[in-house]
């Protein structure tokens, strides 16, 4: 339960109005409460949208040229990504981890249910994002992003750089769920001639604790249980 005073502080925090001391105290409270962090994130998104109410004006075209020149000539190197590579995780290990994490996942689900009321009116906040990286034999630059909405039991997947399969074969999307021994089919995905797909999907069974999504190469029309090689896989 977030008190009214905390809500006041949260509103001032997202607008950058807290003093340094107040901000430090509030950050401390934030680190101790997932519910408060979710609340702040929601308020931050609402506050950011206020920017759109400013009278719309485009910057001069010369500004973009200036900035592009700057990043090219000034050697402003981006900070390297700190993320671990998305390597292929063998199904057996994944299954073991899933079982191991089952109890924790169920506990987390209980906490998430407590937040459901506060977040029910906010579908975007319920969206979990998964980045899927390639696994041999997929091309090295193949990738996909999944936006998963647990409340609706559906999601949107966007695939790029995945060439169309040979005739008689299809790509199939799978949800790896803590409560199911085998991956749950989320349907066949067809890419266009440029290796791109962007579709909404819905798993064939209810999945409450999705740990990962994966795409495999299967027989045309898809299969009820995964048979073929995994091409893309990734967790949240």
């Amino acid at each position, binding site marked *: 339960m977030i008190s009214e005073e905390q809500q006041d502080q949260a509103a001032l925090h997202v607008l950058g109005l807290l003093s340094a001391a107040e901000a430090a105290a509030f950050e401390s409270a934030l680190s101790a409460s997932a519910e408060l962090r979710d609340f702040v994130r929601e308020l931050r998104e*609402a506050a950011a949208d206020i*920017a759109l109410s*400013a009278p719309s004006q485009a910057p*001069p075209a010369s500004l973009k040229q200036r900035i592009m020149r700057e990043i090219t000539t000034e050697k*402003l190197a981006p900070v390297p990504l700190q993320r671990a590579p998305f390597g292929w995780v063998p199904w057996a290990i994944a299954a073991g981890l899933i079982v191991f994490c089952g109890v924790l996942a169920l506990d987390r689900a209980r906490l998430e249910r407590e937040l459901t009321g506060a977040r029910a009116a906010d579908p975007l906040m319920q969206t979990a994002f998964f980045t899927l990286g390639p696994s041999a034999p997929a091309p090295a630059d193949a990738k996909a992003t999944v936006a998963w909405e647990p409340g609706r039991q559906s999601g949107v997947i966007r695939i790029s750089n995945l060439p169309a399969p040979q005739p008689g074969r299809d790509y199939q999307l799978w949800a790896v769920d803590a409560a199911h021994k085998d991956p749950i089919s989320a349907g066949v995905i067809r890419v266009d001639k440029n290796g791109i797909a962007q579709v909404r999907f819905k798993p064939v069974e209810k999945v409450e604790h999705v740990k990962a999504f994966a795409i495999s190469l299967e027989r045309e029309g898809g299969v009820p249980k995964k048979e073929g090689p995994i091409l893309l896989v990734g967790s949240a």
Partner: protein
Amino acid sequence: MAEEAAIVQQIADREMIERIGRGDQSAFSALYDRLSRPLYSLALRMLGDAGDAQDALQDVFLQIWSRAATYNPEQSTVFSWTVLLTRSRVIDRLRARKRRLRIVASATGDEDADVADASTMESAADTADKNDEAARVRSVLNNLPSEQREAIELAFFGHLTHHEIAARLGEPLGTIKARIRRGLLKLRERLGT
């Protein structure tokens, strides 16, 4: 459908930021094309000066280029992250401007010189734009009780603290805090962010 479009846009934004983090200039160019207008509009509204707003926008995009890898999707969407960066850079400039004005006022003995931040405050009701999302935000903002909208706009665009807003409007501090909170909660509810 608007909701799905928003999700797809979020995916595209995250992909662009990931590519920028790897030094991809084409992704940076694409993100600039998508966000430069709203961010510039924000900077211009807060600073009231086109030259200053362009300099601030340049700072923001150079920061995006060099810090894309530090973006944390758990904390905010790409859009709200860049809005935060923009407000931060603009506020730095407003503070520097205020310091300069104080020095001038002190040197000339004109202690009553106006050192307020954005002097071009105007109501969202006065603006017009064809962008759907912008129009929706304006509509929601304009439908807030006027005293809540006023407090939020003074804080967001004018960067007045709640203490300064209370003094300017002659209202108790607690009243101003409550107006800001209630206004933001209504925005959250009605924008479905």
